[in-house]
């Protein structure tokens, strides 16, 4: 894996980049170390039309339904000069609380796409749990395809394409199973079924079945 700032290779035990001294602590000095709440798509540069935004949200919903553990987020904004898109992606995935459908998703299963239309740069940041499924070539191909859309100004299509390609790559390493609604989750959320009285576990009605001997 590479350093977000200098792209030098960083091995697991390193807390700082040996080449440039980059670390998460260094970023905290610029961006803070508190948790930030973010939507899955943050368009600070106002690049997306409303239609593209809604379409991308549907795509991200499908992604999260297909991969219950993972999520995909995108940030489009003009960054300051002293920070690049890879550093911001690094910081967002470590400090961001993304507003996904399930709060139980961990950020180490997250993928963040950061686009800076001013510098025309884009980065794809992967969590620890899934970075092993994306080798350098795969990430490069995904970014090249995304970059071709970005070059045409199709930011919505770029997000959709990146999400779809990441899903294809993850599917190669994931295990398929039948989807079942999580009853425990709905109960935890305080939701009760409307027709609970029809279930076998409900209390039976007395005095109706045998009105008279």
């Amino acid at each position: 894996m590479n350093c977000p700032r200098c792209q030098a290779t960083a091995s697991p035990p390193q807390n700082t980049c040996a080449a440039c001294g980059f670390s998460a602590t260094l970023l905290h000095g610029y961006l803070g170390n508190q948790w930030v709440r973010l939507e899955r798509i943050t368009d600070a540069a106002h690049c997306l039309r409303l239609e593209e935004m809604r379409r991308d949200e549907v795509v991200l919903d499908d992604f999260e339904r297909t991969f219950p553990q993972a999520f995909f987020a995108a940030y489009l904004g003009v960054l300051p000069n002293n920070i690049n898109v890879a550093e911001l992606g690094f910081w967002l995935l470590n400090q961001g609380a993304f507003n996904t459908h399930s709060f139980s998703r961990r950020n180490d299963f997250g993928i963040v796409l950061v686009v800076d239309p001013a510098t025309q740069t884009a980065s794809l940041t992967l969590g620890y749990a899934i970075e092993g499924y994306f080798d350098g070539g795969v990430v490069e191909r995904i970014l090249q395809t995304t970059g071709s859309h970005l070059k045409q100004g199709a930011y919505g299509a770029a997000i959709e394409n990146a999400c779809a390609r990441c899903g294809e790559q993850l599917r190669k390493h994931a295990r398929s199973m039948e989807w079942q609604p999580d009853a425990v989750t709905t109960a935890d959320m305080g939701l009760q079924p409307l027709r609970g009285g029809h279930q076998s576990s409900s209390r039976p009605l007395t005095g109706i079945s045998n009105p008279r001997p």
Partner: protein
Amino acid sequence: MTPASHQPTAGAELRCKSLVFALVLWACLSATAEVPQPSVEKMEDRGLTLPRWSEQELRAFRESLPAISGPGVLLPDNGGTITDINELLRTPVPSGPRLDHLFNNPDSEISPRLRSEDMRLFLPESILGLPTQSQTKNVQMPTPLSALHPVTAEFLAACNLALPQEYLIDPDLLVPEMQNHDLMRFLEFHARDARIKLHVLIIAHDRKLTEDADLGKIASGSLLQTDACLLVYPLGEPWRARLFVSKFVHDQTSTQFLAETVQACLHESMQASDAHDQLHRYTVQLSTRLFWLQRALGKEPTTANEKDQALAEIAPTATAGNLGGVNIQSIVVWSSAVLLLLGVTGITGRHIYRRLRLRRQNRVWILPEPETVPRLGGAFTGGGGGMIRYA
């Protein structure tokens, strides 16, 4: 009687007379005012009485009459005699031979009255308001192959007995007289100028020509004596018409032209719905095509050694024109079939795709959870991924 009593009596009598006179005068005046006065002629008629036969005159008249059974006596219905001549003169004979009865009888020797059926002989039916023949006829369905019967030997014999100049051969008299004459005149006109004589053999719609029929003997063998064309035409079914030409002409002519001739004749005949109109159109078109053929072959007839050859049939099924027609039809059919197949395939593929997509949507993908060691101080990511410049 006293004078005093006498005077009143005379006065009363005078008064009575005057009263009676007044009444009579009033009655006359009232009658004059209410009743119209009769004319002078009536007065004279009233005065003239009708002459009546005296007994002597009547006896003399009876004696002068002929006998009862003699000619010229109108007999009453019941056959009784009339004794009184006055009664005979006053009451006419109630029934007997009348002129209008004679006119109403079509079988009488007197010229019968004309009826609408007779008017049809020289007036078109449309003018008379009668339904035309084509309207009254129902649309005839094509005769199925199983219902086709070969022509009889008697029929062929009758065809063989036809004269060489009899270009319309209709032994069963299937063509009505008027159309027959028209067609015959047309064929004679064609034969006067054309090198290839055209003979038309009419068969019934449910008849077919046998394969072993010797067509050379038709029309007394005249078909083999010169360049000829024989059209065997099932009335009402021009698509089953068979066309024969002399073998020399057949060999000299391209197959494509002959095929186009058959197709053109068939196409022309199918423009009409009436069977006789179809025959007429078919024949006219064939005659025109034969003139074209004559222009291509030359007007000189074949030499003697080339004569006496059998007739060769123009098979419409093996012709290029027909193949062209079939090709268009088959192209349409095959195109429709391919489009239908593509449509069904597309619908099926879309259905399968939707089912797979739905099935995929109902499946989730669970990722394994590997043990990771943090890098660069990041809790959830250590710089995994990449960055590009897309400018």
